[in-house]
C-alpha cells in the first residue's frame, strides 16, 4: 500500500488537478526561446553579464544533441515546459487539494506539518524563519554567506561573477546548457578562510519556492582550510508539478578545505531528473558527494570531482533505488589532474519490480599524475528477477605509476538470508527490508541522523507489498 502511496505521488499529478487554480502573475509561455530567456533575466533584474551568459547557454543548448547513452529521454518535450514561474506565483494550492495518499505518506514518515505543506507544494514559504534566524546570525558573524542564488547574485555580484560557470561551463552538456539559460533559485554558499561550519547547512532551513525550482543553480565556495556540509533535498516525496528537473551544482574547495554535499532526492515518479554536479578540489582539499536517488522516473547524475593539485581527495557515496518504471542511471566521475591525489567511489543500487539501475563511472588519470589512488566499488542488489542492473565503468589512465581498483558485485537477496531472518520471527517483508537496509548501511551511516532514520523508514515503506 505504502509503495503505491509513494509512487502515486508522481503518477497522478495531473489527475488530481493540482495546479492552475489561480492565474499566475507571470508565467513564461511554454517552450524555450530567446524572448523567454530575456524575460527571465529582466524579471530578476540581472546584470548584463548574466543575461549574456544565459543567451550563450541557450545557443549551446540549441546546438547540442541529446545524450545517446544512459536512460531513454525521448519523452521529454522541451516545448511543453514552462521555463519560468515567478516564485510568488507558485503558491497556488491548498492543503485540502493534496491527495490523501500523499498525506498518509507524510504521516508514515513523520514529516512535520510545516514541511509537509511545502513539500506538497502548498506553502511557498517554509515556516522556519524563526529557527533559521538564529542560525543565520551565527553564520553571519563568521562571515558565512548562505542565500538563495538569486539573492546571492544581487548581494554579492563580484563573488558570483568570479566563480559562476567556471566549474561547469554553460555549454558543458545539453542539460547544463539548459540550466544555464533558464536557471532560477538554488543556493549560494560562501565559507571564508578557516571557518568551520559546525551544523550541516540544510536547504530545509530556508526552503521556499526560490530554492527548489526545476532549474536550480547552486554555487558553493569553500576558502582555504574551511569546512562545510551542505544538505539538500529530503526523503519525503516531493510533489513536483514540473516533469523536468535539471539542476547544476558547482563547488570550489580551496587548499586544505573540505566540503561534503549530501543530496537525497525523492522526486515524484514522473520527473526526469538530469543534474550536473561538479567540484574542483585544490591542494589537500577534500570533496565528498553523498547522493541518494529514490524517486524520479529517470535520473542521470554523475557527481564529479576534479582533483587539481597534490593531496586532493574526492569521494562519491551513492545509493540508487529503482522501482517499477524507474531508471536510475547514476555514478561518479573522478579526474586526477595532479600527482598524489586519491579518490573513492562507493555506489550501491537496489532494483525491484522491474526497475533499472546503472552505475556509470569515469576515472581519469592525466599524464604525470603519479601515485594516484582510486578505488571504485559498486554493488547492486536485485530484489526480483524482473529487475535489472548494469555497470559501465570507464577508466582512462594515462600514467603508469598509479593504483586503481575496481570492484563490482551484483547480488540477489538470497533465500538463505531471508530464511535465516524469518526463522527468528521477522516477516518476509521485514526480512527483506532488513537485508536492503543492511546493504545500504555503509552509506546511510554517513547521513545526518534524521535523514538516516527517514531513509530506513522509507526503505521499509518501499518494501511493504513488494513481495508477491
Amino acid at each position, binding site marked *: 500500500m505504502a509503495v503505491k502511496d509513494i509512487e502515486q505521488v508522481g503518477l497522478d499529478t495531473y489527475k488530481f488537478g493540482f495546479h492552475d487554480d489561480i492565474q499566475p502573475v507571470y508565467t513564461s509561455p511554454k517552450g524555450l526561446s530567446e524572448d523567454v530567456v530575456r524575460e527571465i533575466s529582466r524579471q530578476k533584474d540581472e546584470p548584463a553579464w548574466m543575461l549574456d551568459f544565459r543567451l550563450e547557454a541557450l545557443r549551446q543548448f540549441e546546438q547540442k544533441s541529446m545524450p545517446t547513452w544512459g536512460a531513454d529521454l525521448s519523452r521529454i518535450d522541451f516545448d511543453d515546459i514552462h521555463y519560468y514561474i515567478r516564485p510568488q506565483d507558485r503558491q497556488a494550492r491548498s492543503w485540502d487539494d493534496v491527495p490523501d495518499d500523499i498525506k498518509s505518506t507524510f504521516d508514515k514518515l513523520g514529516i512535520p506539518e510545516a514541511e509537509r505543506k511545502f513539500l506538497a507544494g502548498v506553502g511557498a514559504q517554509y515556516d522556519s524563519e524563526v529557527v533559521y534566524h538564529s542560525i543565520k546570525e551565527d553564520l553571519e558573524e563568521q562571515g558565512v554567506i548562505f542565500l538563495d542564488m538569486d539573492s546571492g547574485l544581487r548581494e554579492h555580484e563580484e563573488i558570483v561573477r568570479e566563480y559562476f560557470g567556471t566549474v561547469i561551463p554553460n555549454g558543458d552538456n545539453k542539460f547544463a546548457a539548459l540550466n544555464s539559460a533558464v536557471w532560477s533559485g538554488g543556493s549560494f554558499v560562501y565559507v571564508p578562510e578557516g571557518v568551520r561550519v559546525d551544523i550541516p547547512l540544510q536547504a530545509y532551513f530556508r526552503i521556499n519556492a526560490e530554492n527548489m525550482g526545476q532549474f536550480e543553480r547552486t554555487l558553493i565556495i569553500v576558502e582555504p582550510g574551511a569546512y562545510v556540509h551542505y544538505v539538500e533535498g529530503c526523503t519525503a516525496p516531493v510533489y513536483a508539478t514540473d516533469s523536468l528537473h535539471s539542476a547544476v551544482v558547482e563547488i570550489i574547495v580551496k587548499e586544505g578545505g573540505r566540503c561534503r554535499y549530501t543530496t537525497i532526492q525523492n522526486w515524484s515518479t514522473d520527473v526526469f531528473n538530469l543534474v550536473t554536479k561538479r567540484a574542483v578540489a585544490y591542494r589537500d582539499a577534500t570533496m565528498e558527494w553523498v547522493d541518494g536517488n529514490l524517486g524520479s522516473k529517470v535520473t542521470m547524475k554523475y557527481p564529479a570531482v576534479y582533483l587539481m593539485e597534490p593531496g586532493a581527495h574526492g569521494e562519491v557515496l551513492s545509493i540508487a533505488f529503482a522501482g517499477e518504471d524507474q531508471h536510475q542511471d547514476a555514478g561518479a566521475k573522478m579526474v586526477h589532474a595532479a600527482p598524489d591525489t586519491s579518490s573513492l567511489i562507493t555506489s550501491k543500487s537496489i532494483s525491484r519490480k522491474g526497475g533499472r539501475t546503472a552505475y556509470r563511472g569515469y576515472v581519469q588519470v592525466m599524464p604525470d599524475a603519479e601515485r594516484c589512488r582510486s578505488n571504485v566499488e559498486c554493488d547492486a542488489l536485485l530484489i526480483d528477477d524482473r529487475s535489472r542492473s548494469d555497470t559501465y565503468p570507464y577508466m582512462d589512465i594515462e600514467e603508469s605509476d598509479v593504483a586503481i581498483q575496481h570492484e563490482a558485485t551484483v547480488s540477489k537477496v538470497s533465500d*538463505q538470508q531471508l530464511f535465516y531472518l524469518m*526463522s527468528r520471527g*521477522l516477516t518476509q517483508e*521485514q526480512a527483506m527490508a532488513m537485508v536492503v537496509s543492511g546493504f545500504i548501511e*555503509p552509506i546511510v551511516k554517513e547521513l545526518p541522523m534524521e535523514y538516516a532514520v527517514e531513509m530506513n523508514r522509507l526503505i521499509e515503506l518501499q518494501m511493504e507489498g513488494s513481495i508477491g
Partner: protein
Amino acid sequence: MPRAPSACPGFSRKNRRKLGRAYARCYVWEEQLGPARSPTRTILQPARIVFLGDHRRETHSLRMTATNGQTTLSIRDLHVSVEDTQILRGVTLDVPAGEVHALMGPNGSGKSTLANTLMGHPAYEVTAGQVHFKGQDVLELETDERARLGLFLAFQYPAEIPGVRVASFLRLALNARREAEISVMEFRRLLMEKMQMLRMDPKFASRYLNEGFSGGEKKRNEILQLAVLEPELAILDETDSGLDIDALRIVADGVNRLRGSDLGVLVITHYQRLLNYIEPDRVHVLIDGRVVESGGKEVAERLEAEGYERYGAAAASEDA
C-alpha cells in the same frame, strides 16, 4: 501426561455444552497427543480460552494442562525430499517440553534436512507426515509464524547479513514475538546480560550479523539469539562443531541454564563430548532418513566407541 478429556476438570456433560467450541477444540487437542491419529489442525489456543468468562476455573486448569502437553514437538512419519530426491523417509520423533534429545547420524543422513524442514525452509518439500507443536500443525505455518510460535533453529551454517547489526536485528526479532515493544534501554540490558553469560565481547552487539565472524563466533552468536529470544523448542544443529573446548563449555552452560522446565531441545551432534556437558534425556540415531534407534545416553556412548557400523550405515548413506 494428560490424555483423556476427563483429565480436564469441569468437563461434565453440562459444561461441555457451555464450553461449546472450546470443548471441541480441547478434544481435538487431546487427540493430537496420541500417536498421530488425526491430521486435524484446529487446535485450542490458550488465548481464546481465557475468554470463557464464568468458567474461569475450568479454563484455568484447562489452560495449564494444555500448555504442558502441547509443547511436545511431535513429528510423525515425516517424508521430505529436496529437488526430487527423497532425504527423510519417515521420521517419527517426540521432544516434550523440558527434555533434551540428541539426534546423531552419519554425514548426509538428513539431520540438517530435518532441522530445516521443521523451520520451514522453502527448498525442503514435505511429501508425507505431520509435525505438531503447541497444538498447531507446524507444516501449515510460514517460517516466521513457526518462530513466533516458539520454534528456534541454531543453524549449522548461519547466514551472513552485511550491514545489519546484531543488536538491531535481535531487537526487531524480539519485538516480533512480543506484544509491547521492549524499550531500547531495557533491551540493551537484556542483551548485555546474555552476552556476559556467554562471555561474549560486548563489541559483538554492534558488529554486522555473522559477517566476518569466525566459525566459533557464529555458533556462539546463535546461542546468544537463543538466550535472548527464549523460544520453547530449540534445535541446535551441530552447534558444537567449530567451538573450542572452553567455548563448548560456555555454550553448554548457557544451554543448561536455559534448559529450565519449559525449553525442549533437539541437539544435533556428531560427538559425545557435547553430550557430556548437555546431558540428553534421549538419544536418537538417524540413518538414511529414518530413526533407527532411540534410547538413553548410553546410545551415544556406544556410538562414540563403535561408530555407525552396526547399523550398516556406510552402505545406507551411500545410496541415499
